[in-house]
């Protein structure tokens, strides 16, 4: 991930590796006080990074089948709670 963060601990979670998921993503708009939402769908690789303490876990999603128009690349990091697995009931 970007500019290796100071308190980042990488790991691998086999329980989620290879699962299809959607990510209700987004974040602050660079240089502004605004935010924006972005939606992704793809495969969770199992790779994660825990930032800081308490751990703020981020998973890597690849093979994107849904991404914003013009989004560069085929991967995105998704915060753990923004991920909704295709084989789970979210209702």
């Amino acid at each position: 991930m970007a500019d290796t963060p100071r308190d980042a601990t990488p790991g691998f979670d086999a329980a989620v590796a290879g699962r299809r998921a959607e990510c209700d993503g987004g974040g602050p708009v660079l240089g502004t006080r605004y935010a924006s939402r972005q939606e992704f769908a793809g495969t969770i690789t199992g790779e994660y990074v825990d930032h800081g303490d308490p751990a703020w876990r981020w998973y890597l999603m690849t093979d994107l089948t849904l991404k914003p128009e013009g989004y560069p690349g085929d991967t995105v990091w998704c915060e753990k709670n923004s991920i909704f697995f295709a084989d789970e009931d979210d209702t």
Partner: protein
Amino acid sequence: MPKNPMQTKFCDLMGIEFPIIAFTHCKDVVASVVNAGGFAVLGEAMHTPDDISADIKWIRSRVGDKPFGIDLVLPASAPGADTLEKLLAGIPEEHKKFAQHIKEKYKVPEPKGAQALHQWGGLNQDIARAQIEVILDEKAPAFVSGLGSPEFMLKAAHERGMKVFGLIGKTRQAKRELEAGVDAIIAQGYDAAGHTGPIGTFSIVPEVAAIAGDVPVIAAGGVTHGRHLAAALCLGAAGVWTGTIWLACRESDNDMIIKEKLIEATSDDTVYSRSVSGFPMRVLKCPWTAEWAKPEAPKTLNSPYQMLLSSDYIQAANDHRRADLMFEAAGQGVAFVESMKPARQIVFDMVEEALAAFEEITGELPE
């Protein structure tokens, strides 16, 4: 004696008089709304930890023990970051030429100083963590996550006696955050300014209220009048989250030109556009958004490239106070921004309007 509809479970939770939350980037508005009996949340996404600490102390000096909130935009996804030079080099020539065409057509001058965008740190979880740490250290009465889930810091906040609210755009996000233990859910509908979810306020609020149990649900998106407050309470909300209504108030530090534009605007004067940042966001219409909406315009780029394209237009418009070019994020409720009222008057008017709406229906007012 009929129940007072203004006395909601959100008022009970926070110990406030009126279920109106003002979201603002101006701490004077926060102080006025809180002292008028409402609740207010200061947006601090762009501020350093030192600034956030100073703002919390300033607010406390004006409101005493009355509660208020601090909002950050926690990210929910992140691409790999890149250097500014590589990002600028990634903008296609066609888009640079189109942006230049807009600047020439509307005679947009050069910005006066270095662009704030180019000085910002970019997407980095370290920034958000440093901001959260100071909010926890200062024990702000409430922390609000304006986008991503606050789950990872809930325990630390609750241990400090803080409340944590999450703002969501879909019901499944609400379910996730309710399971995590947030103290209130802000259900934001499509009518809102800035980053809205895809679902209308009228639809998402009752859907989230149906699964929230005892957790207060706050209706967000298009709320600018007491009738919206009354409607939100009927939809199952325990309060309203308001933003646009404060942009032109007397305490707001917005430029007077922006205040006048907001007062003149109606719901038809906002547009949900990707042309500002590459992300869809609702803003007042302006030449920049109009030109990018034309059929001959190139497709907007993704963030951050589109933001890099628009940033000198935006900064120049603001530096030179060009009323014809300036714009602001605004929700569809902007029609009820009718004057530059004091913030406390907005609170009292909204409550009276809501009570009058209930009286129209029931024929009686509570004592």
